[in-house]
Structure formats: C-alpha cells, structure tokens
C-alpha cells in the first residue's frame, strides 16, 4: 500500500528555531489521520510542508509519491483547507466556485453546486460576510470538488462553535464515505479526533512522539497501578510514557508489545485521550533520559 505522506528526517527551521525536527512518518492511504499536539508543536508546519507552502530545511517529504506542489497535476491531487480558512472577502460564493472551476482541471461542478445548495449558501453572498462555519464549509467544498486523492486540513474547526464544528465534520465524513479520499487533519481537540480519525500522529515540541492506527494505539498502551516501584527495573519491551508516584503507589502508563505478566500490577485500559495527554505531558528530554536509564540497567 502506498503512503499518502512519507517523510524522512523532515525538519523546518526559522532562524535558529526548529519548528519541526527529525520527523519520519509513513502515513498509509485510506485513513482519516489525526495530527494532535499542543499549540506550537509543529502541526501547521508539517501540513504546510505537505502542500508545498513551505519547503524543508532538512530531510525529505513525499506526498502521493510526488514532491509537494511540484506541478499543477500534483496540486490537483491534494485538497487543502488552510488554518482560519481564508477566502477572498470581496468575491461571492459563486465567484469562489468559478475560481475552482477555472483553476482546477479536475473540477466537479455538479458536486460543488450540490454541496453549496445543501449548505444553503446563496451564490451571490460575499465571502467576507459569511460566518466562520460557512466559510469553513466553502473552503472545504473548494478542496473537495476538485476530486483530490488526499485532503489536508489545518485546524479547520478550531475557531468554530460546537454546532458548526459538528456540521463540518459531518460533511467531511460524508465526503470520505462517498469518495474514499484519505484525510489528514490537525486538531488540538482530542474529542473530535476520537470520533472521526482512525490513525493518529502525536506531535509534541516539534517531534513525532507516536504514530499508528487508533486501534493499535489503544491495544498497545495500558495503565499499570501497583505498589511504589523502581522505574529502572521495567522490562525492556515496556516503555514508560507517563508516571506518577505517591509514597506508596505508582501509576504508570506504558507502551508495550506483549501481555503484562507481572502479577504485582493492576492493568487498566486507557482511553485515547489518556494516551495523547500522556505523550503531550512529557518533556522530550525527560523521555530520552529515562530511556537511557533503562538501557544502562540492561
């Protein structure tokens, strides 16, 4: 199966600050991929690199097997909804559709018009006068109507009220069900991600912390509760993601590839939010030193 997005050591630097560093991913097609992380983690940077609005400072990125934005054909295969869903304020809704038709050879006018009618948007309404939710829907329509293979959305619902957010996600899911596009969407709302995504990438402090299908993630992460424990003696196939201790009890969230055999632990399932928060809560430095500690003990 080809990857929709494949990166290798990808990095982007502004001055001395690395907005994204050492990002190696292979996102398979046919999924709705959630990109989560705190603000400033590099989500926007990664997505902008994927659509060719930014060029890498280090490493490589390939989208649908080609270099992002390399030619009009490549551009036609990827639909993009940028952060804050920019529209031309002075142009009407109908003008935006005409824009799409003129600038995209793969334009599906029937789909676009049907969508707009379904949304109840008047064609002569100026885009500048639309509500946030309507603007987001318009930009999504533009992205979808050119019949791309991949849709990339940069925090499309962050500034929308709950109803507009729900409606946007409904339309997005309907699109996926109907056309089978792969989707990569970033958000810092784990609840939304849980509903619509089946693949997750966690980005914290400009690095990829974990990536995989949500099913895999949920089955490979567990919470262990037990007596106060020395972290150094954890088995090598168990990676501690988050830990907290009282003077008598240790609670840790681990990633493991095998069953928990140690009877001293109580094993609990975790929710996706638990997993994401665990990865988001840690400092990358702390993790690597912990890994070092484990290695020395071997």
């Amino acid at each position: 199966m080809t990857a929709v997005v494949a990166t290798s050591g990808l990095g982007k630097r502004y001055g001395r600050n690395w907005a994204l560093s050492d990002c190696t991913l292979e996102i398979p097609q046919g999924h709705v991929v959630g990109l989560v992380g705190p603000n400033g983690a590099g989500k926007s940077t990664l997505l902008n690199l994927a659509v060719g609005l930014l060029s890498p400072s280090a490493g490589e990125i390939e989208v649908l097997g080609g270099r992002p934005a390399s030619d009009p054909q490549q551009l036609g295969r990827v639909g993009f909804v940028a952060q804050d869903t920019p529209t031309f304020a002075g142009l009407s809704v109908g003008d935006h559709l005409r824009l799409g038709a003129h600038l995209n050879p793969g334009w599906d006018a029937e789909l676009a018009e049907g969508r707009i009618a379904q949304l109840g948007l008047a064609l002569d309404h100026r885009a500048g006068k639309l509500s946030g939710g309507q603007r987001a829907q318009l930009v999504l329509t533009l992205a979808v109507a050119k019949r791309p293979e991949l849709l990339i959305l940069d925090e499309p619902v962050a500034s929308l009220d709950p109803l507009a957010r729900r409606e946007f996600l409904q339309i997005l899911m309907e699109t996926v069900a109907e056309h089978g596009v792969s989707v990569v969407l970033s958000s810092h709302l784990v609840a939304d991600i849980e509903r619509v995504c089946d693949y997750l990438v966690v980005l914290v402090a400009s690095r990829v912390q974990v990536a995989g299908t949500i099913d895999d993630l949920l089955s490979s992460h567990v919470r262990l509760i037990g007596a106060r424990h020395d972290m150094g003696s954890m088995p090598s196939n168990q990676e501690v993601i988050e830990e907290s201790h009282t003077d008598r009890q240790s609670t840790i969230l681990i990633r493991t590839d095998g069953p928990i055999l140690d009877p001293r632990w109580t094993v609990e399932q975790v929710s996706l939010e638990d997993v994401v928060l665990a990865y988001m809560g840690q400092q990358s430095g702390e993790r690597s030193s912990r890994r070092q500690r484990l290695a020395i003990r071997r």
Partner: protein
Amino acid sequence: MNRGMMIEFTLDTRTGVPPYLQLVQQVRRALRLDLLSEGDQLPTVKEVVARIAINPNTVLKAYRELEHDGLVAARPGVGTFVVKTLSDSTIAAHGPLRHELVRWLAKARRAGLDDESIEALFRDSFRASSAEGIA
C-alpha cells in the same frame, strides 16, 4: 419489506465503549425490541456518518461484526439488510413485563430513590440472580 423507519444511531463518547461496539449494541437492541425486523435496511455508511460525524471505517467495522454474527447481510450496490431478528417468542411477554417495570420504577421513585440508586439496585439484583442461575 421496508417498514420505512430506519434506526438512528447515537454515540456517547463518555462511556469507555468503543464507537463501533456502541453501533453494534444499538442494532442488537433494536432487533431485540422488534424495532427492526427481517428485510429492513440499515442506514448506509454515508447516511450514518453524515448524521453522527464518525469515521466511516467504524460503521463498516460494526456492520461487518453484525454480518459475522449472522444478523445482517450486505448486498453490494444496494445496502445492508437485516436477515435475522433477536426477538423471539418472548416478544409477546414484553408488553406486560414492560408495564410491570414502569410500575416498579414509579414505586422506587416514590420511595425516594434517585437514578443512580435505581440503577445500582437493578444491577446488583441482576448480577446476584444471574449468579444463582435463576434466569
């Protein structure tokens, strides 16, 4: 024959139950309560996700499990249809039993029990009676 009333799914993200399982349970419940009968069509994947904004794969997974359990069958190009219900001869007893339940609930409320206590009381009794082997 299509009765014309399709099941409407809901999703509760607060419970620990995975979304696809919630859909499966809702279909099974509907089958049990005779709200869905043989030949009824389940909503298409597109209709479901357009309503409750979840991943289409989730719906597919739920329908596949139902198909695996022999309850529904997918007809390519047409849709997914119910082939077996879970309601049985006991369906006749549902009416009166439901009636008694409603009366019991009214009694419990009059005695001052809140929702949580009612649920706890029911679960506890249910578990105990199951353990005793009395169905």
